[in-house]
């Protein structure tokens, strides 16, 4: 009989852990979101100015024998790459925080283990990375096509294959949670 009731001592660290995850996740999310927005706006502005202002101006101009649009293309691509990498670093932090909140919301109150938070983190990270890389591809696509028409297509195919693998890893990460909820549901059906 004593085994059926969990000891009171075990509940306290769980509750503490739950509150800690909740507050830390909220704070981390509030810290990272403005930075992400800032870098995304910067990347979009670089893309817009490059596409609509600098590249049309540079059309037909040569710099020491090299076509200026190609050089500008390369500079803009490098800038976009730096900005996207910066966004990815912040997204990594934000996803960790969002996964913590999700684990607290989905799991019953005070029933969140560090493993569960880890699983949600992996799953969220995978899906958000796929979204961010897809958005980044949209920024890069036109510039890559300007360098070589086939380059954009090759990058897209690589992104598609990578996305399939990433989606599979993300869903596999929460398979333990799915198993747990399935067995609970099976008990209700009986």
């Amino acid at each position: 009989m004593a085994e059926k009731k969990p000891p009171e001592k075990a509940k306290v660290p769980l509750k503490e852990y739950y509150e800690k995850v909740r507050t830390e996740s909220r704070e981390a999310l509030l810290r990272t979101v403005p930075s992400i927005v800032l870098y995304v706006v910067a990347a979009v502005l670089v893309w817009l100015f490059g596409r609509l202002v600098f590249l049309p101006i540079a059309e037909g101009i040569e710099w020491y024998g090299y076509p200026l649009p190609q050089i500008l293309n390369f500079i803009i691509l490098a800038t976009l790459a730096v900005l996207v990498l910066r966004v990815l670093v912040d997204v990594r932090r934000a996803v960790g925080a969002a996964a913590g909140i999700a684990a607290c919301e989905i799991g019953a109150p005070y029933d969140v283990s560090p493993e569960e938070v880890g699983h949600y983190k992996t799953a969220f990270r995978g899906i958000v990375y796929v979204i961010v890389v897809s958005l980044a591809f949209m920024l890069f696509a036109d510039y890559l096509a300007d360098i070589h028409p086939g380059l954009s297509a090759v990058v897209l195919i690589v992104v598609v294959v990578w996305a399939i693998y990433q989606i599979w890893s993300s869903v596999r990460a929460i398979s333990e949670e799915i198993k747990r909820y399935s067995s609970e549901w099976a008990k209700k059906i009986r």
Partner: protein
Amino acid sequence: MREEGEPETRARLADAVNEHLPSTFTNLSTAVLIWLFGVLVYLPAARRIEPIEVPLICGLTVLIGFSAFVFRGFEGLRRLLDASSGVLAYEYKRRREKVKSSIEQLKTVARCIVYVVAVLIIYGLYSPLLAAIYPSLNGLVFIPVILWIFWMIFKAVTTLTAGT
């Protein structure tokens, strides 16, 4: 053969849920996510780069990934649909007291309906991927699907009329 009672049918569904739902759900949700990203993001991006060859390669890649996970989840899905059709038949019988058909007949009809719905959903998901490879391929697959649906409806109707 002894007719399976409601508790046995429910136990069979519970066993199927316990045994097959986690892997089936994992595989099918992966397939759905691949479909969502493939059809709504990557195929339009591919069409923007080049209208024929890039969507073809991109569509084939997404189709292979999507099909791999659909096939992995297929066996579990079949068992879950079989088990759930039995429970559906009992639920229907309980709600409509006047139904004259036996529970076995209702099970067959429920299985036919569940299969038709599942196949229509799977075809709907395959449709844009097949159209990206070749537009006629989509139609060519649709014809056997429609014939199979007619066969299932015919099977359901004959099962019901055999009892009256």
